[in-house]
């Protein structure tokens, strides 16, 4: 009893501390921009009095940029949504375990009541009259939708309705969610419906082998409901392509599906007279055509296949990136790309892994998997350059990437899996990770020194941050070489310190990208440690539900504190 209460207390303190940390930095970051806000108001006044022309005004305003508020909300949404999804997964696992100790009617009543309460509460928090926790409201609506799915799953399980009726299960779930999507305009539920429609397609395939058009029709309906939102259209189209790849065993059918989807998207844009979006629909169509060509080349003349394939992968990855750069928009196209990239990566990597573990796969595939990985990183760099290009694009992007490069191997080493695997296959794994660390350290050292010169930065380099990074990496090396028994603790603490340091670094250097990376890293760190410590200790459904509650709790603390800060800021400004 005592230990139970103590554990709850520790969890609550943890939620509060972890939730408060980002809030503090959000606040500090915003405070820094108060000066910019005042300056922008002054320029506005000068423009209104016609003391300066619009061109001068724009130039002056660009010297005093304001922080991007939208991204901050998006990050909070991610924490909420991940938390809600974890709770949903936990609830589904609970029903799937078919636990007989609890009466069926009680399980049903519990799931139904919880789903209704989550939906009603979510709607309440989303309402204008209660603006304190709008993001929580959205996530509760999503949670209610997931729990409602649990109710349907339970009934299908309880009544022993055949597995061949799974398409009906998902179909009823989708229909139940349509009013939330259309009427309550819930964005996360829209994406949930897209995912469910994908699963619906897979289940339909088992039952209605020749009726793929049902899934196509559903997607077309979703296209209309997306109301011209490029991101939504992109995800719908992306899932359709993924469906084509994952569900159809034969390449010809997969490509046909891809071509059909692309053609429809193109037609959709033409019918809606959205000339600017034609390029988004055309690129996948061209890529699909190119893929078909390669397929036939592969079929008739194998020696030309490999290099054509390489050209295809390059085109598939680089052409859309160029278009994104040209149109200054990442919406939609990225989603197209993600679907294609995931397919390519999975396709090569699965074969590559098979070859790696001594299977019959072709060994060259394995190297192409790395090629795909590198191309993916290039994509990430480009996207970040575009998103955070307002200020020091070179410096912020490269600092972001070097931190990412540095953290990935440390993250891998920090897991039980990482060190155990390293031990099992000799020290090759650790050796490789060490080399990546060395490489990252060189880049970390090199970039902040060289890039400021290239980008004509006026500010001096923050040597203290660099020195601290070196210290952390050195500690990892030392522990791996001479203090192996305790290396796992050293690695974890070093990683945590580096992540926390990134908040200070981003604050000092005005680099929001680094701040968001740090937040995501902190989230992943918490999830990984949670996974390491409790996976074997807890029942799987409890594990996911507790993890989800923990994340939603952290997000509530962040949202509440930010609300208070905003209020106090407003009061201060008014006074």
């Amino acid at each position: 009893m005592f230990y139970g209460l103590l554990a709850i207390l520790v969890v609550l303190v943890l939620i509060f501390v972890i939730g408060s940390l980002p809030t503090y930095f959000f606040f500090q970051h915003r405070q820094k921009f108060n000066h910019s806000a005042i300056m922008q108001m002054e320029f506005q006044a000068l423009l209104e009095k016609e003391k300066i022309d619009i061109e001068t005004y724009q130039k002056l305003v660009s010297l005093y940029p304001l922080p991007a508020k939208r991204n901050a909300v998006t990050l909070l949404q991610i924490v909420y949504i991940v938390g809600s999804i974890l709770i949903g997964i936990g609830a589904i696992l609970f029903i799937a375990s078919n636990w007989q100790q609890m009466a069926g009617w009680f399980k049903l009543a519990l799931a139904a009541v919880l789903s209704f309460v989550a939906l009603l509460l979510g709607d309440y928090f989303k309402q204008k009259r209660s603006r304190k926790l709008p993001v929580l409201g959205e996530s509760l609506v999503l949670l209610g939708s997931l729990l409602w799915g649990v109710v349907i799953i339970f009934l299908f399980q309880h009544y022993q309705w055949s597995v061949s009726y799974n398409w009906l299960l998902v179909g009823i779930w989708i229909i139940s969610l349509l009013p939330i999507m259309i009427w309550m305009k819930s964005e996360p539920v829209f994406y949930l419906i897209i995912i469910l429609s994908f699963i619906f397609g897979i289940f339909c395939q088992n039952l209605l082998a020749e009726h793929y058009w049902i899934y196509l029709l559903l997607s077309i309906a979703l296209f209309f409901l997306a109301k011209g939102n490029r991101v939504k259209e992109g995800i719908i189209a992306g899932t359709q392509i993924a469906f084509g790849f994952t569900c159809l065993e034969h390449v010809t059918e997969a490509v046909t599906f891809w071509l059909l989807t692309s053609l429809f998207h193109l037609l959709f844009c033409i019918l809606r007279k959205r000339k600017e979006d034609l390029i988004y629909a055309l690129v996948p169509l061209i890529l699909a055509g190119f893929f078909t060509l390669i397929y036939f080349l592969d079929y008739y003349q194998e020696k030309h296949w490999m290099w054509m394939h390489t050209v295809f992968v390059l085109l598939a990855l680089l052409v859309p990136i160029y278009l994104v750069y040209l149109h200054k928009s990442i919406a939609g196209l990225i989603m197209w790309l993600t679907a294609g990239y995931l397919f390519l990566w999975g396709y090569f990597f699965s074969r590559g892994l098979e070859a790696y573990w001594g299977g019959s796969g072709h060994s060259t595939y394995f190297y192409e998997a790395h090629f795909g990985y590198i191309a993916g990183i290039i994509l990430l760099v480009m996207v970040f350059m575009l998103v955070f290009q307002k200020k020091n694009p070179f410096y912020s992007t490269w600092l972001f990437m070097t931190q990412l490069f540095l953290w990935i191997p440390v993250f891998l080493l920090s897991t039980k899996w990482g060190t155990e695997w390293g031990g099992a296959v000799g020290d090759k794994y650790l050796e490789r990770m060490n080399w990546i660390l060395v490489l990252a350290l060189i880049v970390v050292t090199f970039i902040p020194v060289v890039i400021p010169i290239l980008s004509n930065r006026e500010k001096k380099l923050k040597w203290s941050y660099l020195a601290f990074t070196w210290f952390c990496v050195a500690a990892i090396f030392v522990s791996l070489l001479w203090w192996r028994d305790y290396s796992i603790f050293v690695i974890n603490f070093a990683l945590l310190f580096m992540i926390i340091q990134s908040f200070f670094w981003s604050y000092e250097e005005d680099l929001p990208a680094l701040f968001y990376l740090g937040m995501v890293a902190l989230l992943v760190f918490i999830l990984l440690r949670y996974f390491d410590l409790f996976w074997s200790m807890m029942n799987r459904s409890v594990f996911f539900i507790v993890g989800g509650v923990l994340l939603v709790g952290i997000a509530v603390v962040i949202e509440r504190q930010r609300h208070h800060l905003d209020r106090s800021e407003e009061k201060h400004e008014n006074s």
Partner: protein
Amino acid sequence: MKIPKSIWIVLFWIVILAGMFGFQNQKTRSGYDIWVKPVPVDPRDLFRGDYVIFSYDFSTFRKSTLNEPIPEDFQKTVYAILKNDETSYLLDKFTFTKPSKESVFLKGFSPGGLYDGAPITYNIESFFVPEGTGTKFEQAIGENLLVKIHVNPNGEAFIKETNINNLSE
């Protein structure tokens, strides 16, 4: 007072729930229960967890059990007429016309056409079990494992229970 949208949605959900209850209730109201002999295997469903797949002697089409020619306009539906074999019901013969109410029959589907060995499904092929208990069913093969199915007058069936607990006792 304006009723919030979420209340309407909850009401809509309750209607769906009631519909599902009603559908099941309608299936249970008429018809009868019979015991049939299965052969189980043990997979896992994405949503509903562990289940066992049952196959029956009437799950595979055999031309030898057909007393009539396959009609040219065959529409995937085939009826399995069962006969009582003391402990359970076994296949007597297949037919394409709906049998009279006096005989015990199941309505089956053959999506891939009819040929010797073609699979026929009756929606009684899966049975959801508590997690990790699937092996009990595997062990029960050959120990007179029986499945109780409810059959309505149209020959539509669903599983009610098995005799697994009686076997282990």
